[in-house]
């Protein structure tokens, strides 16, 4: 039996992209407005009892110390309790998990979970490439974000014969899905040939194997399962969630063909929800790089270990495939504004379970959707949230 103590009654995001014209505060206000507007029976913003903000790198918008508690004022909720969550790339999904626990605790009835990230206010070199020290701050200088995942591609190719074409097929699929998602940063198709002809960024990953740096914000409104029907006839429940950590640095991994944090987090979420991978109708997973999605679908149990490449190439994860993955376009096409990423993935799951995803709607058979992030210096943390429309 799923947990189902908390429901999502509103969700929304702003169009992701290089939003030079919008401030961090304006992006936050846009996402909050979108989430409020999605509440079927309407919700006055004064109903919000508490705010949880996910921002991973305040440094990217130049206000290292205060990202988070500036949000209530910016969105017309000054005075409301607010806490910032930072947990690497899963910051948004962990903020959601914490928001659900806050609601379930009975302390706050209606909680806004909002993710906001300004990735482009600083130059590319100063942004995620900054300092080229994604690993230990004193060691491994020259480590940029792709270095955190490319070693897994090298080893996956070595052990399982995964090919560059298989990696490319993930980018092709997610860019296609992105053309169907009006919120996606990229709105154009790419071909396998284009991916393979794109410049090497960090071998074996090429430019189109990598997600862009994107500004964005997304928000969801949580309330108790009991009160959900005050706001909608189509609530989506939090069926379960799981978090797991792993040794944080790349040289400490027990394996280079999988991310153990993902497997552990998924196991906990499935146990809590009382379901398994086969029960999922779709998944929004962390595809910061093409190899990451291949690792994810194996680690989450959608395909056998080592088979993620062929499964992607053969369309098993397409919109009409056995297990549709990243119908929103994923991080690769929709973008990866870190704190907002998880919330935006959950918004996509919410739309899909409510069958409101227009052209990219997948078949909902069992009523379950899975959302996943993994990140940190060496994928040392993962969060999995499972949503259901089944009461």
């Amino acid at each position, binding site marked *: 039996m799923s947990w189902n103590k908390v429901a999502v009654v509103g969700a929304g995001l702003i169009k992701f992209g290089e939003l030079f014209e919008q401030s961090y505060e304006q992006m936050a206000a846009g996402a909050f407005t979108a989430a409020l507007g999605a509440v079927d029976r309407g919700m006055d913003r004064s109903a919000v009892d508490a705010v949880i903000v996910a921002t991973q790198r305040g440094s990217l918008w130049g206000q290292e110390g205060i990202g988070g508690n500036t949000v209530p004022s910016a969105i017309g909720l000054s005075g409301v309790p607010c806490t910032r969550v930072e947990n690497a790339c899963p910051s948004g999904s962990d903020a959601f998990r914490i928001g659900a626990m806050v609601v379930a605790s009975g302390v706050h009835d209606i909680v806004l979970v909002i993710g906001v990230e300004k990735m482009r206010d600083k130059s590319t070199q100063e942004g995620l*490439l900054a*300092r080229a*020290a994604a690993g230990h701050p004193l060691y*491994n200088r*020259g480590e*940029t974000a792709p*270095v955190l995942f490319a070693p897994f591609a*090298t080893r996956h190719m070595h052990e399982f014969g995964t090919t560059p074409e298989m990696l490319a097929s993930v980018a092709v699929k997610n860019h296609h899905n992105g053309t169907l998602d009006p919120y996606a940063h990229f709105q154009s198709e790419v071909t396998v040939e284009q991916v393979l002809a794109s410049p090497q960024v*960090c071998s074996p990953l090429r430019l189109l194997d990598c997600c862009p740096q994107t500004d964005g914000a997304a928000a969801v409104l949580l309330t108790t399962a009991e009160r959900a029907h005050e706001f909608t006839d189509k609530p989506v429940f939090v069926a379960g969630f799981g978090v797991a950590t792993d040794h944080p640095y790349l*040289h400490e991994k027990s394996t280079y063909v999988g991310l153990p944090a993902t497997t552990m987090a998924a196991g906990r979420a499935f146990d809590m929800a009382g379901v398994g991978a086969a029960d999922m109708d779709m998944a929004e997973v962390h595809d910061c790089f093409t190899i990451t999605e291949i690792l994810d679908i194996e680690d989450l149990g959608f395909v056998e270990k080592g088979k993620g490449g062929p499964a992607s190439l053969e369309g098993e994860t397409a919109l009409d495939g056995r297990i549709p993955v990243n119908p929103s376009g994923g991080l690769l096409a929709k973008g990866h504004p870190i704190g907002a990423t998880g919330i935006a993935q959950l918004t996509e799951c919410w739309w899909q379970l409510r069958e409101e995803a227009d052209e990219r709607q997948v078949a909902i058979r069992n009523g379950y959707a899975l959302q996943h992030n993994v990140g940190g210096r060496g994928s040392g943390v993962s969060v999995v949230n499972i949503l259901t429309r089944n009461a």
Partner: protein
Amino acid sequence: MKPVAVLGVGTAAPSLRLAAADVGAAWGSGGGRATVAVCDADEDTLTLAWRAAVDALAAAGVAPAAVSGLWWGTSRPPFAEGPSLAFLAGTLGLDRALDGALVSGSPHAGMEALAAAWDALAAGHADVALVVVSDALVPGLGTAGESSTGAGAAAVVLAPAEGATNGASPPARLVRRATRTVPALDRYRPDGGAATEDVYDGRLFREEVFLPLMAEVGAAVAGGDGNHPVTAWAMADPDGKLAGAVARRLGSPLASAPVQAALGDTGAAAPLLGLVEALAPAGAGTAGADGPRRVGTIGFGGGRATAVTVDVLRPVPGAAGVASLGPGRRASYVEVLRTRGQLEPMGEPIAMGVPPGGAAFVRGNVEMLGLEGARCRACGTISTPPSIHPTCVGCGGSDLEVVSLARTGRVQTFVVNQTMPPPFQAPLPLIVVDLDDGARIMVQGSPADAAELAVGDAVALSLHRYALERGVPVYGYKAFRRHDGGGGDVGTGAAAQEVAR
């Protein structure tokens, strides 16, 4: 005064070679036929010193912990003011109760370091002395020095002759020494200056200052002992004419010409690099029928000159000749300007997150320079580095001992990074290495290996300068592909690099 023996030697040359003709072409002058050795962006006087020292210790069969003093002579240490000697000691794993001194300020520093170590041993203040001489000077743009300034390092392990080799006669011993001082300004670098300046009339100084000074110190150590004439001389040769003239005046051949031709004027390293060449079997050779061969070396600079003679009784361990320094890679003049920091892009450099003067480096420097891990006494797992692992990554235990990590291993997985902000240059391999002692680390690799690197490759680690951060050198280890397949045992300095090449 105890007699002092040479137990072993080591040498090192940087990776790049610059043709004087390329320099000449840039300035519209002749340039000449010379080739000089130049540091790549990740090499400097300290990394060269490290390689020579590691090999000298290995050749002498002396464990780092047995070294009682480190004397380092370099015209221009990596920190103008700062912990240069302590950093070098840290990279070598020397005992914290370390005697010795950093000598700098002119190319004469190499001979001053040798003399100081000799005196400490002779007086009984030290048991085993490690003398390292190195230089990688930056010549001023458009100066004659651009076509002659090289880079390199040499190291010698010295100990009292009595008892140093378990009863056997030592391979070589120091014999005589003489120094002269004259207050003449030659090459110099002012406070805050980035490059060494040649202000003198080279011909005038050669004829009127250096030639008589060097001949005088040479004659002072060569004379008075007719049974053992000096059979070969070694010395620095900044203009390609001086050394030959001094040797002719002293009446013995010049043994240092091959190393001078290969590397250029290596400054403070030149007298000992030349001496090592003279100690190599193909150089001055070993004891003949009439007793030991005697070789001499002369260093000068900063208005000082010192000559030292050495008796060679048998081949000196580690003296492998100029060929062992490797051919290097030909670099363009523009590439050399970049690696020397004389050609820099506009715009603000992107600072690293952690300032090198910060507490994180205080905690991390010893384990970074010495390449240490924390070995779990319960399960044997080695967690690296120790300062961020209060518990074992294998079993969670906290009974850990700090160990020095193996310097060879195999590639578990890797990437080649093509997109990084300055100062990093693509292609930069980043490699997860399974070390032969079971530890696992992630380090940078060599651009030269980028195209062919593969999972399972055997690699050897060596010390490099990762970055020059806020003007401060940051050092770490890099993994180089071994072309011997990883079967044989290798040292960790120049020898390992040669195997890697």
